[in-house]
C-alpha cells in the first residue's frame, strides 16, 4: 500500500514538473527563467492569499465567541471586495504607467486586460500581466483587513463593508502609486520593499481612525480602570499567527518580483529572523513588565517583527534584521499598553503591530541601510500618514453621521453574531464567561 502511494506521489510530481521541464528543454534560457519566475510569483500569490485565513483566525481567537461569525464574515468579504475592486479600478490606479498629475495621480482606466505581450517576458521578466495583477491584488486586500481587527465587536457590518470598499478601491492604490507605481516618492528615493508603509501603515492609520471614531467596547474602560475583554480561543489565534508568518514567505519573498535564487533566499532569511527576534523581544518584554509572559503579546511580537522587516528585507543585513525584529517585539508590547491606557480600544493590537511597527520598519531602512536616507523614509512615512489617516477618518465620520458606524448597546451585549447575522458560531455549546 505504501509503495503504491509513494509511486503515485512520485508520478504526480513528475507530471507537475513536466511543463517546466518541457519549457526548459525546447526554449531558450531566458524563456525558462521567465517560466520559473512566474511560477514562483504565482506560489507567492497563494501564500499571500492564505494570510487572509491567518487574519480571520487570529482575530477570531482574540475576540469573544459571540462575535465570531461577524469577524469571519468581514474577513471573507474583504478578500472578495479587495480582489474585485482591484480588477475594476485599483490595479490601474496603483500602476497607472503614466502620471497625469506629476507623480501624484494617474489612472490607466477601468478594468483589467492585456495583449499577447502581457503574457511574456516583454511585459516583465518576472511575471505575466495576470500574475502581476493577482499578486498585487492579494496585497490590497491585506491592507483592508488590518482594520477589521481594530474595529471588531462593535462596528456595524454594512458601514464597515462600505468603508473597506472605498478605502481599498481608492485610497490604498492611489497612495501606493506614489512609490510602487513609480510616483513622486519613488523618484525621491523612498524605499518600501514589501509594504511596511504602503500596506501595513496604510491599514494601521485606518485602524487608528476607526478606533477613535468608533469608541471603545462596552465595559472596557470603567471607572478609570481597564477591564480586559478576553479572547475566546488562543489556539485559534496561534493558528492565525503561524499562517500569517507562512504567508509572509510569499509577501516578502514575492516582493523580489522574480525567482532570483540569491535575492529570494536572502529575503526569506531576514524575514524569518526578524519574526523570531520579534517573538523573543516581545517575550522578554512581557515577562519583565508583567511578571508572567503574556502569550497574546508574543503572538503580536512575531507579527511586529514581520511588519518591521517588510520595508527592508532585501536592503538590510542579517544582523540588522534581528535588531529590527527585537526592537519591534519590544515596541509592540509597550505600544499595546500605551494605546490601551489612552482609552483607544484595539482588541487585537492591530494599531501597534501594523501602524507603529510599520513606521518603525520603514524608518529602520534609513537607519540600517547605507543606501537609503532616514529623512526620505520619514517623509514617506509622514506622506502616507497625511493621506491615510484623514481619508479614513473622514469616511468613518461620514458613515457615523449618516447610517451610523456602531451597533446599539443592546446589539453589542447580545453579540454581533445574533444581532447582525441572526446565527451563532458555536450553536452546539455555549462558552460561558464569568466576570
Amino acid at each position: 500500500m505504501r509503495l503504491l502511494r509513494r509511486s503515485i506521489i512520485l508520478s504526480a510530481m513528475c507530471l507537475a514538473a513536466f511543463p517546466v521541464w518541457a519549457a526548459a528543454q525546447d526554449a531558450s534560457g531566458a524563456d525558462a527563467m521567465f517560466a520559473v519566475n512566474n511560477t514562483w510569483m504565482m506560489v507567492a500569490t497563494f501564500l499571500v492569499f492564505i494570510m487572509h485565513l491567518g487574519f480571520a483566525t487570529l482575530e477570531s481567537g482574540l475576540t469573544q465567541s459571540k462575535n465570531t461569525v461577524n469577524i469571519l464574515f468581514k474577513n471573507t468579504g474583504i478578500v472578495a471586495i479587495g480582489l474585485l475592486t482591484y480588477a475594476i479600478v485599483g490595479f490601474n490606479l496603483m500602476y497607472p504607467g503614466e502620471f497625469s498629475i506629476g507623480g501624484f495621480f494617474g489612472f490607466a482606466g477601468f478594468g483589467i486586460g492585456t495583449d499577447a505581450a502581457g503574457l511574456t517576458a516583454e511585459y516583465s521578466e518576472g511575471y505575466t500581466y495576470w500574475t502581476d495583477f493577482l499578486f498585487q491584488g492579494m496585497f490590497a486586500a491585506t491592507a483592508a483587513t488590518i482594520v477589521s481587527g481594530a474595529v471588531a465587536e462593535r462596528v456595524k457590518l454594512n458601514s464597515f463593508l462600505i468603508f473597506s470598499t472605498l478605502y481599498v478601491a481608492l485610497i490604498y492604490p492611489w497612495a501606493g502609486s506614489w512609490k510602487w507605481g513609480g510616483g513622486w516618492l519613488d523618484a525621491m528615493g523612498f524605499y518600501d520593499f514589501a509594504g511596511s508603509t504602503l500596506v501595513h501603515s496604510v491599514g494601521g492609520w485606518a485602524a487608528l481612525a476607526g478606533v477613535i471614531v468608533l469608541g471603545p467596547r462596552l465595559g472596557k474602560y470603567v471607572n478609570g480602570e481597564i477591564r480586559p475583554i478576553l479572547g475566546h480561543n488562543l489556539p485559534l489565534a496561534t493558528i492565525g499567527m503561524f499562517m500569517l508568518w507562512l504567508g509572509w514567505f510569499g509577501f516578502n519573498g514575492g516582493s523580489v518580483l522574480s525567482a532570483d535564487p540569491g535575492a529570494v533566499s536572502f529575503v526569506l532569511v531576514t524575514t524569518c529572523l526578524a519574526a523570531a527576534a520579534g517573538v523573543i523581544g516581545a517575550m522578554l518584554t512581557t515577562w519583565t513588565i508583567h511578571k508572567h509572559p503574556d502569550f497574546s503579546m508574543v503572538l503580536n511580537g512575531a507579527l511586529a517583527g514581520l511588519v518591521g522587516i517588510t520595508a527592508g528585507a532585501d536592503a538590510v543585513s542579517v544582523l540588522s534584521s534581528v535588531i529590527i525584529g527585537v526592537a519591534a517585539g519590544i515596541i509592540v508590547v509597550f505600544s499595546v499598553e500605551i494605546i490601551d491606557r489612552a482609552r483607544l480600544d484595539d482588541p487585537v493590537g492591530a494599531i501597534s503591530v501594523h501602524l507603529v511597527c510599520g513606521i518603525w520598519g520603514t524608518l529602520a531602512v534609513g537607519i540600517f541601510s547605507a543606501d537609503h536616507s532616514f529623512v526620505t523614509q520619514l517623509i514617506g512615512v509622514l506622506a502616507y500618514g497625511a493621506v491615510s489617516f484623514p481619508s479614513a477618518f473622514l469616511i468613518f465620520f461620514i458613515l457615523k453621521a449618516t447610517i451610523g458606524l456602531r451597533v446599539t448597546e443592546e446589539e453589542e451585549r447580545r453579540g454581533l453574531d445574533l444581532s447582525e447575522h441572526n446565527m451563532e458560531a458555536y450553536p452546539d455549546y455555549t462558552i460561558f464567561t464569568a466576570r
Partner: protein
Amino acid sequence: MKLVIAYVQPDRLHHVKQALTEVEVNRMSVTNALGCGQQRGFTETYRGSEFEVRLIKKVRFEIAVNDNFLERTKEAIIKGARTGNFGDGVIFVVDLGECLRIRTGEQGTPAIG
C-alpha cells in the same frame, strides 16, 4: 428520598467518583459550575491589565438517593473531595419530592435505584 448536591474541586472529580463507586453509588450527574465560598479568588493578567477572577471553577454532583444510602453517599463524597484546603466545597442535602424513571415509568424508591 434525598437529592445530594455537592460542589467539589475539579481535580477531585475522579477521586469522588471512585469513592462513590466503592459504596455502590453509581447513578449521578456531573456538571461544570462556577462558584465561591470562603475562597476569595485570584488575579489574572491579559495584555498588560490585571483583573480579578472571583468565581472559581468547580464541579457539581447531583445524586438522588434513597434514605438508606444517604450516609454512605455523604461520607464518600467527603472522602474523595477533602484536601484540607479552602475551596474543598460544600454538600447540600435536599428533600426529594418525586422521582420517575423515564424509560419504564417507575416511581419513587425503585426509580432511584
